[in-house]
């Protein structure tokens, strides 16, 4: 059994849509379904991994709203149909990788055949995030179950806890109103690179692999400092690393994946490595065989 990835899509905020993480997510999800020839009612499980959303909404999860706007079995239970279950997973910039791990497990168990993973970030609007540093973007990928070999392999995670000292996003009272504040220390990229390298090294040890065995690395965040530290620590030269979207947060990995797909580098590779680092500092890695 293999978990395949199909129809990876990244949408960016146009002038009308630059302030709605919900719309960006729905657009990306819809395009992914169109690319894969699926209809929304064929999605039994929808997982959203975005962080910065309209009005910093805390409840409900954004996934049900995406499900409703997408038209994925939003109605009350009735005969002859199956419902859709949706929820959010948050793991900062590595949320998509966590969602892929959860999706992979549900697919392996045979609970579902398809999982739609969606992410997006945008300025919450209403003046709630002065100096918001990320570009509005949405992304989606369809995880499908295949009987063939390949697909996603084992996941590996590493953490070097810093209690958010190198990167944190908080919503709190400042000058009389609750605003989103993002703290990004100059050493974050370096720390993220080291933790990502630790996750990959553990994965290589588990799988008895060497850096040379990997043809392409899709890495997030897209930061020169991160790539340099990560590449040096693992022993993978920069030419093999694909990243995209310098001002993206949770969508960054999907942007890199889309670039790897559209350039043909993923299809040409025998073995690919996906790696995401995020605040915490936490990093995850997984092997992918196209």
């Amino acid at each position: 059994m293999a978990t395949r990835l199909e129809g990876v899509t990244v949408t960016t905020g146009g002038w009308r849509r630059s302030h709605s993480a919900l719309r960006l997510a729905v657009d990306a999800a819809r395009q992914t379904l169109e690319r894969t020839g699926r209809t929304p009612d064929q999605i039994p499980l929808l997982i959203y991994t975005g962080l910065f959303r309209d009005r910093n909404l805390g409840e409900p999860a954004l996934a049900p709203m995406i499900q409703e706007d997408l038209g994925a079995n939003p109605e009350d239970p009735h005969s002859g149909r199956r419902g859709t279950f949706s929820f959010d997973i948050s793991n900062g910039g590595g949320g998509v990788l966590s969602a892929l791990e959860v999706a992979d497990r549900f697919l392996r168990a045979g609970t579902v055949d398809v999982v739609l993973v969606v992410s997006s970030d945008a300025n919450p609007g209403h003046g709630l995030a002065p100096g918001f540093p990320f570009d509005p973007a949405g992304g989606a990928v369809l995880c499908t179950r295949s009987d063939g070999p390949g697909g996603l392999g084992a996941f590996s995670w590493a953490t070097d806890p810093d209690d958010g000292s190198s990167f944190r996003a908080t919503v709190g009272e400042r000058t009389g109103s609750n605003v989103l504040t993002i703290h990004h220390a100059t050493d974050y990229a370096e720390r993220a690179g080291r933790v990502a390298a630790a996750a990959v090294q553990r994965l290589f040890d588990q799988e008895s692999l060497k850096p040379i065995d990997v043809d392409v690395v899709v890495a997030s965040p897209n930061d020169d400092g991160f790539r340099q530290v990560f590449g040096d620590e693992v022993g993978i030269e920069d030419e093999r690393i694909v990243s995209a979207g310098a001002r993206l947060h949770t969508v960054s990995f999907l942007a890199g994946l889309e670039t790897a797909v559209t350039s043909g580098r993923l299809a040409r590779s025998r073995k690919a490595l996906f790696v995401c680092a995020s605040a915490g500092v936490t990093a995850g890695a997984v092997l992918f065989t196209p």
Partner: protein
Amino acid sequence: MGTCSPRHGVGDRVHRTVSGLLPLVARALAKDRGFVGTVAPSQWLLVEHSPGGDAAPGVARIAAVGRALPPARVSTDELMASTRHRTRIDLERLTGVHERRVGDGTDDSFTLAVKAAVDCLAHTSYGPEDLDVVISCSITKFRDGLTQWLDPPMSVAVAQAIGATSATTFDVSNACAGMLTGVFILNDWIRQGAIRTGLVVSGEFISSLARNAARHVRNIMSRELASLTLGDAGAAMLVERSPDDKPGITVTGFTTIAEHSRLCVAYPSSHEPGARMFTRSQALQVAAIRDTPILLREALEAAGLEIEDIDHVVPHQTSTRAIRKGMAHVTQALGGEPTHPVVVTVDHYGNTASTSHTVALVDELEAGRIRPGDTVALVALASGLVIGVVLFRADENLVQSYGHAS
């Protein structure tokens, strides 16, 4: 959308026909719509069975539950006396909430989660270093008072605080169904043997929403009325691979009826500390009462059980009136009732959001009302609208860890 009863009746007939006479056709249809496995094709719920065949042969069990309750109590009379406007609302009569626990300023979502996790582990032989996964499911992510930490995720901080240094961590958000969604994920991983132990944890420091609502509620029609029922709590649940795969979690099933996704929304307040929540309680209750019996029936059918086989139903704690009304509909629709009265704790803890099932479960275990072999149904009703069921059998070890022998 039609009404519930006719649809339910038709659903029953179709279900019996499809599963009884045309299983191959139904299975093919289900597969075309992205579903495989052993679940009945006409099932609306996304269901996990235990054991789940070759792909997921193991069984997960609930090994322990823990909670943290702030010592301070605020009665409904006291809260309503603090409202800015003269509301004339008899909230206690309306909701059955007599009092709720409220943090005194030293607790927040994070500290409540950590305390609950420590309490949970104290009921097991596990140490934090034994945890493979820590999933934090708090809706509120308040740390250092009323500052919400969106990133890093709270799971990293909780794992670090309790010493779960080797655990994989991530957060799940699914409103008041968050913790049970976490159980749904852990059940999946444990059944496949991917992990042995996982901790689902949550801390809800939500009394600030009640304080904010007290400034704005004018009358019984206010959409912030439900905020006045909220109480603070932390909760944790440890799920592990059942030794010898003895019965533990038998079925988990969830769905999101997303056309109701906007019936309850919460976000940070613009000009007050903390957050505000706006709920169309009546519409939410109507949808929940209409759909829960159908979905509970599906979960029971998947487990091969009747409602009379259930010993304890632990619903999400919103109000005594809503819980009893909902249970009456379940009894009527399913033609029977559980062995014990439906569990109600909202009267003394209020609605503690994602922690409510676990907080109530601890009450039942500590009081010795849950006995070894009892079948328990945790029923999630959450903004989204999420409806879910976790069916599990309480075993000797779980009951004993709360001081009660068989």
